[in-house]
């Protein structure tokens, strides 16, 4: 919601200097105290909050998984009641898929994007703050059910009719339905922010063939989210109406359609799976070149394959439904697409291997995680290819083979790159290295633990163990494999704890890291660690994909300019550029800290609590608070407040629109 002014005259171009830096610091610094805490719009602060919050959900989801693994370690155990097991496996899935996997990537992209793009913030900072608060409150909303003993109990896929009130009378599914609609708002606004940021706030000269792959990944995911979240929000809203206001959308005895749910859910959830791995694949594509000492092999192919994966990914959702009795024509089509979608993934894998092969790997902890990810990606990829073949899938589906597959994909392609990214960018964020020796131990514990836990699941799956069972008999041949899985799960958990230990230790005693500890080539490594609130003293002009490497690689037509550029110091300002070529187009007047996003999120929370209790006064109260927050947000002329320097400057031309 930045206002902008057409660039009618060239603003001052200056060389970076301490006086300018000091001035920018005052303008961009988050206010201290409660106003700053609730009102900050700094993408770095919001990014860190996203990452920390998502890791807390990861920890909770991990503990849930360990409890499940205790119950399944041996046949016929009674650690959990069936209902407890069902609530735990549901919350495990919901926590990991919705409250960890996407938000952690949103956090990284939030933190890193403006640094990678040479900007001072994302395009819509208050929307960004709103997305975090909505995420936090929707997560707390869903987890409130847990502490009331009524957690969702129908799996993350939440199939009807079991989710209908007739079979599931408690508030469990209402928490989930409303929580998902709630979280969907957060993801939607955050995606909108990423799309605008990628399109309009790149550094001058960063044409679309010079964007880091992480940006391609998150941009692709964000576009997908905008397209598919309406489907799932609608589905959950219809279910909420069915359960609370007597509609019949999903009630077969009244002509409702159980399969309608599955279509609406999976047309969202399959693209979502790609959305929670593509940005992480981007981390690997951007990280490997640094540790292989060469640019990525096949940049254009990898960028295109990112988008191709998502485009094809819109046509594979029914491979979750091969056993529902679909027509043979539909089966053939979706089977074909589900197999062919492996082609763009193959592009990425071979590009990574070629990058390592032709490069000179530096065996840092981050490199371990990125290289390990490639192996796990291949294993998770081929098991996905197997499930794409319909007749085979009729056997594989809903067995532990699929549990193995999805964990190889989600942990392999999300968690491993994310941990690698932590080792790589922690020095940027904190100015301190994580301990590399601990980091390698961390990798091996996680890698061995992970494979010990999840590889045997392929075998218990091939031996016919169905998913989502709270116990199993002793005479079906699954006992030994389950025991190994449970042991591996704990080993993996110890590996994850070691990461937390490393972070805790390194925050206090970490080795000092300079601006560019790994000799990286992209813009984030050009600024101090940790970055100042304004990121760049002068806005950089970019001539290639690796502004910091171009002197040595000589791969850019001209030279990037990082120490001289636009100052843009009249209040919070940054540069808006054109979509394709990133030519300077407008000066963006960015917002200051504001209570509006927080208040809006609180109002929205009250609406959802009102809906949960079917309380019209509650919903009305929430709507009024939301309305007030929106008024506060959209009130004209607030952008330049709080900037004493800016107040003395001649005003800019009237903004043409908001």
């Amino acid at each position: 919601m930045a206002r902008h002014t057409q660039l009618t005259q060239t603003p001052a171009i200056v060389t970076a200097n301490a006086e300018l830096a000091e001035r920018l610091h005052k303008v961009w610094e988050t206010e201290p105290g409660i106003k700053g805490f609730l009102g900050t719009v700094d993408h770095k602060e919001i990014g860190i909050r996203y990452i920390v919050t998502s890791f807390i959900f990861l920890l909770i989801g991990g503990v849930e998984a360990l409890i499940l693994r205790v119950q399944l370690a041996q046949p016929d155990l009674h650690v959990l009641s069936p209902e407890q097991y069902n609530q735990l496996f549901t919350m495990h899935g919901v926590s990991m898929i919705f409250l960890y996997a996407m938000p952690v990537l949103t956090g990284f992209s939030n933190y890193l994007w403006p640094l990678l793009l040479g900007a001072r913030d994302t395009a819509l900072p208050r929307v960004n703050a709103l997305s975090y608060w909505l995420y936090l409150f929707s997560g707390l909303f869903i987890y409130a059910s847990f502490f009331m003993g009524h957690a969702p109990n129908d799996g993350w896929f939440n199939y009807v009719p079991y989710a209908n009130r007739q079979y599931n009378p408690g508030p469990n599914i209402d928490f989930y339905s409303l929580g998902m609609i709630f979280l969907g708002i957060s993801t939607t606004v955050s995606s909108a922010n990423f799309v605008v940021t990628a399109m309009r706030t790149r550094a001058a000269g960063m044409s679309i063939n010079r964007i880091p792959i992480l940006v391609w990944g998150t941009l692709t995911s964000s576009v997908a989210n905008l397209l598919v979240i309406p489907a799932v929000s609608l589905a959950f809203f219809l279910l909420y109406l069915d359960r609370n206001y007597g509609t019949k959308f999903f009630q077969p005895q009244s002509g409702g359609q159980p399969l309608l749910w599955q279509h609406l859910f999976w047309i969202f959830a399959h693209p979502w799976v790609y959305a929670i791995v593509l940005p992480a694949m981007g981390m690997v594509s951007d990280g490997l070149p640094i540790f292989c000492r060469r640019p990525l092999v096949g940049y254009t192919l990898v960028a295109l394959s990112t988008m191709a994966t998502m485009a094809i990914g819109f046509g594979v959702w029914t491979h979750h439904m091969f056993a529902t009795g679909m027509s043979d024509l539909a089966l053939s089509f979706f089977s074909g697409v589900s197999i062919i979608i492996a082609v763009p993934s193959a592009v990425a894998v071979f590009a990574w291997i070629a990058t390592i092969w032709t490069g000179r790997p530096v065996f840092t902890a981050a490199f371990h995680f990125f290289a390990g990810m490639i192996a796990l990606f291949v294993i998770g990829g081929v098991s996905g290819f197997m499930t794409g073949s319909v007749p085979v899938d009729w056997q594989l589906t809903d067995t532990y083979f699929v549990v193995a597959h999805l964990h190889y994909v989600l942990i392999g392609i999300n968690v491993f790159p994310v941990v690698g990214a932590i080792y790589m960018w922690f020095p940027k964020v904190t100015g301190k290295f994580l301990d590399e020796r601990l980091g390698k131990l961390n990798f091996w514990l996680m890698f061995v633990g992970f494979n010990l836990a999840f590889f045997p699941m392929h075998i218990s799956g091939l031996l016919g163990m169905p998913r989502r069972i709270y116990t199993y008999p002793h005479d079906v041949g699954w006992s030994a494999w389950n025991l190994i899985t449970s042991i591996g799960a704990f080993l993996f958990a110890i590996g994850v704890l070691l990461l937390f230990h490393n972070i805790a230790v390194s925050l206090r005693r970490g080795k000092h890291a300079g601006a560019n500890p790994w000799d990286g080539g992209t813009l984030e490594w050009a600024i101090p660690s940790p970055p100042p609130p304004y990121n760049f003293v002068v806005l950089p002009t970019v001539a290639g994909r690796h502004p910091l490497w171009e002197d040595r690689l000589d791969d850019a037509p001209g030279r990037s300019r990082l120490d001289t550029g636009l100052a843009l110091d009249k209040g919070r300002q940054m540069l808006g550029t054109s979509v394709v070529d990133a030519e300077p187009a407008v000066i963006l007047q960015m917002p200051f800290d504001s209570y509006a996003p927080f208040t809006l999120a609180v109002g929205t929370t009250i609406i959802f609590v009102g809906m949960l209790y079917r309380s019209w006064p509650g919903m009305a109260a929430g709507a009024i608070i939301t309305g007030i927050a929106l008024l506060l947000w959209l009130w004209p002329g607030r952008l330049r407040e709080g900037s004493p320097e800016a107040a003395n400057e001649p005003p800019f031309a009237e903004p043409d629109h908001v």
Partner: protein
Amino acid sequence: MSAPLNYLTSHGARADMILPLTRGVLIISIIVILIVCGLLAAAIFRRRPVEAPGADPRGLLFRPRGGLTFVYVGVGISTLVLVATTIWTMKTLADVVSPPREAKLTIEVTGHQWWWEARYFSEKPAEIFTTANEIHIPAGEPVRFKLIGGDVIHSFWVPALAGKTDTIPGQTNITWLQAERPGVYRGQCTEYCGKQHANMAFFVVADEPARFEEWRQKQIAPAAPSADVAQGLSAFQTRCGACHTVRGTPAGGKVGPDLTHVMSRGTIAAGTLPNTPGHLTGWIANPQGVKPGNHMPQIDMSGADLNAIRTFLQTLG
């Protein structure tokens, strides 16, 4: 160790058609993993020419050529394998759509929380009968299954004979299967359906055709309880009759499994317990202890009543 639900072996025409594809894609997958992980390891550990002895590799940068060839060759080969697999898949899919010859027998299976109802169709209305959790079929003959969802979605799966087909309320799914040889093939619900999803097994029992016909005639016949178990019958009617049917007696409930010939089945509670007098008594006395959350209520009854009911049930062969 025996694994009755494994699907890397098959015992029937439908599973036979799919098995080569299953094994094929599994082998392709293992080969792909070995090749690609081998390449990855080689890429990481291969010896590199020393260009600047003693130099810290971190300071160096390279822009070697040739990396793209890797991508083109790798993706080219992958694409060929993927296309070939797609064609093989289509071929197999076309093959399994219908049985090798027309099925004479149709069985309607309804998935319930948490048991299976099987209704045997016949052109003669008097020969239609219902049983539960143990589905007999004639060996060597294709059998058609009409699958119906009784409450929530379940999935009908007998891995040795065929892949899964869901039972979905509001729609009828059709599948077929065939057992080559007589035998007992374990089945299991594989769509999550609530608290006792784990304990929702069943058995497909393939008999020689003559034995199957014998079994069928026996199932068609109503129960004929003798006078010695009159007390048990009366207790059954009051305690259990609202939910369970025993044909030939006034007990006609439709909520739970038909028990007319319960003693002909090898297990009770949907494959959860072997059908022995002790387990039967335990199940009647304490169904919530055996399958917590299932829909069979815990009914307070005297030991005498319990024994009488058990004795009555034991006559239902």
